[in-house]
């Protein structure tokens, strides 16, 4: 199952500058492992050794923050879009 994953500028050193790459898997965990297989080193930038998402990394599946949908266990279906973004200050 092919899922589009959008990569933020800061992590494109791992994807040869590509803004978006394809990965396969039916959970976010599998997507992350598949990303690591093709873009070595990216996983440790996203996930702590403990298996939690890193504090300043936000991951969205179809625009919803995965911290509220099951984290790395979040299930994916064909055509879903994964967006990875660094956490930055918002607010007015």
């Amino acid at each position, binding site marked *: 199952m092919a899922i589009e994953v959008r990569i*933020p*500028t*800061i*992590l494109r050193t791992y994807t040869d500058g590509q803004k978006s790459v394809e990965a396969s898997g039916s959970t976010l965990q599998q997507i992350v492992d598949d990303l690591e297989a093709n873009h070595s080193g990216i996983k440790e*930038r996203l996930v702590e050794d403990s298996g939690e998402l*890193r*504090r*300043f*990394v*936000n991951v*969205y599946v179809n*625009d*919803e*923050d995965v*911290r*509220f*949908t099951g984290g790395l266990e979040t299930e994916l279906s064909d055509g879903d879009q994964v*967006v990875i*973004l*660094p*956490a*930055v*200050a*918002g*607010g*007015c």
Partner: protein
Amino acid sequence: MVRYDNLLDSVGNTPLVGLPRLSPSADVRLWAKLEDRNPTGSIKDRPALKMIEMAEKDGTLRPGCTILEPTSGNTGISLAMAAKLKGYRLVCVMPENTSEERRQLLRMWGTEIYSSPAAGGSNEAVRVAKQMAAEHPDWVMLYQYGNPANALSHEEGTGPEILADLPEVTHVVAGLGTTGTLMGVSRFFRAHKPEVKVVAAEPRYGELVYGLRNLDEGFVPELYDETLIDARFSVGPRDAVRRVRELLESEGIFAGISTGAILHAALGQAAKSVKAGEKADIAFVVCDGGWKYLSTGAYEGTVDEAEDRLEGQLWA
């Protein structure tokens, strides 16, 4: 009671307005909390006034003090009004990619503006402000991202007002920036009507804003407690513009762009409730009116054109 002794006393108690045309059915209804009806035209009058009052009470803010704040606009404008009336000097650190209207308003109220680089957005403004605070230990940085008074203003004001006007409320949707609105509103509902779901809509900007030098420079506001939120959506400029225009077109409400992002999340929730066959009364926050964003070009031309014009801007 709509008579007040002075402008500061009139902060809050904003109207909650039904949206009969955008609501999908009689069972799933949307309600807009019109925060643009505050004295300076935005929801930020609540935290700004509360932060000043608390700092006065605990003695950190004394007559003649200088207040310092990193802000992309509304908080600065609210602080500027209150500072003028109370006799404080205000220095704001603003990212340079913010609309001209916001700068003009701040200058009108006598605020001194320091610009921080566009790349990095509000992260940079926070960093620069913290540096300035260290250089000027006599200045008072209220710091909306970490000041509990920010959330408290919503716990004591915004939340109770929504429940009083809409006892049947099932969902509250608000913008996630400093996280103050959502934290405060959620604390109130967790204590008084815990079944209410709290939904966050977070603006997704152009790449420039996420251009950090490394991931460890990322930023999560000190106020943020994710256990107080039930769902969090990231909304890009295209959906925000589309929805803000829809709000005007079908309900006559002229709102700022960030409200479009919040409405997008509220409509998403409404669709879920319809699908699940459940009753829902969804209150969402209209943060401000559209006046301060006219120069961004979000309200004219096609949605494609508006999206292009917002690229790289801090539109919320």
